[in-house]
């Protein structure tokens, strides 16, 4: 499709949906508060609006359509369709969060039970399902850390949070937003978090360690217990970013390694769909020492009835309106119930098997390497480097990515932190078959061959996409960037 912008489809006099109109009088608004001119929205009939978005959907590549292993760090897995059906059911979709408790016992029970499942999976004592995403859960965890230290009179003293360079960016950004000084540990030569750097960093000002494990390199930190011990020794808390938990479900738990807090991304590990970038859902899990500070409310059960406990004086308060992204919580609950303990372990084992299988295939390709921890296995993902191919051919990883898209799949080119040169991060998860992985490796091999033999083909990609190369610079210039049609008409039209 060569689908125009929606504003170009306007046809005055058309409309997309009828609205109930009333013959009751419309009250007069105060001066300056009445809309002078109707908003300049497009005027389109219903089939035209539908067709426009249908075509845009076909120009979008979801997990359901491709071998989506290239969104490394993002755990793209199959979201069972049956779980969507629960969420679309009016008995979830049409519930108002303030309805009488007696009329929402089912959803309260689901939330309560999901907390129980995640308690067992993490080993923690309580779980808040309110965070809207992984980052939001990290922020909630930091807020709880702040409240914890404040409750012990150490709020002012402990103003530093330590994280590692390969931990997800929010582990640095959220504490900073919360007012902490952030200390980032660089990896050692093998790509493992540097324990000497940690020793140097900890002290009486340490509020907490925030760490991802395995990191996005796919490397599991084997000294994680020692990291936790060092921080605990100085009175700090340890907070586990479990965005990469997929490969270790049922294998090892946050509590077993001594953590005080952790979080899960339910839209990664627990299969809720990614929706073009949310809504997601996060879960913050804590030990009983942190429980008083959990976001309010909590869901409780008195033996016969589920109820909402909003009377939590030490709580950090609200993280999100009402109870979190309930639709995704329902999906995550159903997913875990369909798998059980053995199924979750199958998820973990299959995803690491798939990853190591894919590694063996990808490393056969000319020009690619797997930096760090040589000779060690990876857990559920791996960050590769096209450094040699770039040196040989001048082609960048980003260009390879554009060309891969011509073959009906893709990889993401955001590989923060930008430490590995010409990076490519692949995470096959449990959702892909051997044939899928073979196909993906075959595509990479073909593009690498092109890079060596016919580099122009790669350099000028994409060739099969809906559009051609963009002139990116205009997005960095206030004189030309255009975030809306209004701005576009003013600046560029």
């Amino acid at each position, binding site marked *: 499709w060569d689908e125009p912008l929606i504003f170009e489809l306007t046809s005055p006099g058309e409309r*997309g*949906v009828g609205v109930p109109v009333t013959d*009751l009088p*419309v009250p007069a608004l*105060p001066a300056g*508060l009445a809309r002078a001119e*109707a*908003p*300049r*929205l*497009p005027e*389109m009939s*219903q089939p035209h609006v539908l067709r426009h*978005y249908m075509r*845009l*959907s076909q120009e*979008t*590549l979801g997990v*359901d*359509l491709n071998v989506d292993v290239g*969104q490394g760090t993002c755990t*793209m897995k*199959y979201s069972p369709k*049956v779980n969507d059906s629960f*969420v*679309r059911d009016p008995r*979830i*979709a049409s519930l108002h969060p303030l309805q009488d408790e007696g009329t929402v*016992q*089912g959803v309260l029970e689901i939330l309560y039970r999901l907390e129980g499942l995640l308690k067992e999976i993490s080993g923690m004592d309580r779980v808040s399902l309110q965070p809207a*995403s992984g980052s*939001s859960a990290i922020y909630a965890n930091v807020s709880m850390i702040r409240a914890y230290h404040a409750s012990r009179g150490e709020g002012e003293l402990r103003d530093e949070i330590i994280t590692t360079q390969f931990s997800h*960016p*929010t582990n640095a950004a959220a504490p900073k937003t919360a*007012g902490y000084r952030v200390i980032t540990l660089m990896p050692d030569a093998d790509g493992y978090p540097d324990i000497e750097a940690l020793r140097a960093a900890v002290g009486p000002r340490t509020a907490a360690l925030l760490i991802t494990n395995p990191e996005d390199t796919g490397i599991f930190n084997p000294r994680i217990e020692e990291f936790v011990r060092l921080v605990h020794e100085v009175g700090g808390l340890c907070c586990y970013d479990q965005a990469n938990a997929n490969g270790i479900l049922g*294998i*090892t738990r946050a509590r*077993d*390694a001594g953590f005080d807090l952790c979080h899960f*991304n339910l839209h990664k590990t627990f299969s809720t769909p990614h*929706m*073009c970038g*949310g809504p997601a859902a996060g879960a913050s899990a804590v030990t009983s020492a942190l429980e008083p500070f959990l976001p309010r409310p909590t869901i409780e059960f008195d033996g016969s009835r589920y109820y909402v406990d909003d009377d939590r004086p030490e709580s950090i308060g609200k993280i*999100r309106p009402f109870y979190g992204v309930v639709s995704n919580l329902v999906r995550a609950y159903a997913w875990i*119930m369909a798998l*059980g303990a053995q*199924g*979750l372990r*199958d998820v973990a084992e299959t995803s690491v*098997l798939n990853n190591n299988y894919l590694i063996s295939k990808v490393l056969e390709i000319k020009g690619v390497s797997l930096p760090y921890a040589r000779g060690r296995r990876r857990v559920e993902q791996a960050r590769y480097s096209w450094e040699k191919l770039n040196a040989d051919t001048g082609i960048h990883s980003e260009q390879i990515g554009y060309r891969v898209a011509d073959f009906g799949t*893709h990889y993401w080119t955001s590989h923060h932190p930008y430490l590995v040169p010409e990076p490519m991060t692949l995470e096959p998860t*449990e959702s892909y*078959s051997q044939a899928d992985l073979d196909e993906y490796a075959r595509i990479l091999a073909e593009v690498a061959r092109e890079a060596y033999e016919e580099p122009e083909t790669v350099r000028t990609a994409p060739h099969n*996409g*809906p*559009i051609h190369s963009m*002139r990116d610079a205009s997005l*960095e210039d206030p004189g030309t960037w255009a975030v*809306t049609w*209004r701005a576009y008409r003013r600046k560029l039209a």
Partner: protein
Amino acid sequence: MGHPYIPNSDPEIRKRMLAAVGAASVEEFYADIPDAIRLHRPLDLPAPLRSEAELVRHMDRLLSRNKPAELSFLGAGCYQHHLPAVVEEIANRSEFLTAYAGEPYEDHGRFQALWEYQSLMGELLELDVVNVPTYDGFQAAGTALRMAGRVTGRRRLLVVGPVDPDKVSKIVDFVRPDHDVEVLDGTHDGWQVADLVVGADVAAVYIEAPNYHGVLDAALPTLAERAHAVGALFVVGCNPISLGAVASPASYGADIVCGDIQPLGIPMSFGGGNAGFIATRDEERLVREFPSRLFGVVPTVVEGEYGFGDVFYDRTSFALREEGKEWVGTASALNGIMAGVYLALMGPRGMREIGETILALTAYARERLAAVPSVTVPNASSVSFADFVVRFTGSRTAAEINTLLLERGIQGGKVLSDTDALFCVTEVHAREDVDRLAAVLEEIAK
């Protein structure tokens, strides 16, 4: 035999793949995990519901204990509106539902749909910059205020109530490191917005239109002037579904406008449907303070073709980690696409009609309930949109009234106090629904 969700979970397949990578067992892959922290038992979880039929049966049993209200007057931050079927259809498209963070080339449709959302909201808000949705209106308010703080470099924030206490709680937790928040709420002490004095140390004045009690305060334009007079930013939270009939905050001086797009075609989902927007004029000092993604339109090498990408990417935590503004990550993109479809369906006329319908019905409801003995409706002289406070002056508390309403098949408003409750009407209510509520209240409000 494998699990349906896990292609390679069949033992034979796994054996074959292990052989291909030269591993004796999956244990090899876990060599870096010390034995001491390994879980040496199976997780203690309920037995799996391995067939889809059993899973559906289990879930149906749970869902059968939820009863969507047949007639409800709840609002207070989560609104019942008619959800056009086309919005649902698009939201359920597998491509949109399961895409994530693809690049502009292979996910051209996603970028375009989100840029169009920004643009459609821009028309509604009369502002040139609108973000890819953040989590919810709470977060949008918190971020908008921190943006204002970064722009002005000042510490004090004035929050002019009534504002949802839960939202205040979120704001206070979120801005704590940089800001002191002062909440001014005239609900009980007769203080008026028109009385507000804005000091020169104020970073921003935050107010809502309509406010938590549904009121559209006549002093809003005045307040904008007072804030601007001392160099403070004027930050307005608004309900976007009102803006076909109610003036855009930008038109009376708002510098940053924020709020929640849940009313624009997104199901309530027990409070899961909220998603936030932040909008500003197209000034670099404002734009650079957005933590969110902002998609921009770009010409391609082919004349007349549009591409899309991130505007000023280097502001974000993706690029700068802790030096980014707040953080960016998975937020609420699909809700943005849904709101975009909603606005496209409604068009200028639909938005005007729905705004007027709700204004008219709110006025009718307030008048009709005020006529019930032992019921009064505060703020009588003001205009309200959707939400409005109802006060029970008889011997029964608002909570008791709600219980009696529920027995008669009506879900009452949110209880605010012993006497007050926040009721809400929208276009899903017919005049007869209000009459039915009034009739029941005549019977029970004593």
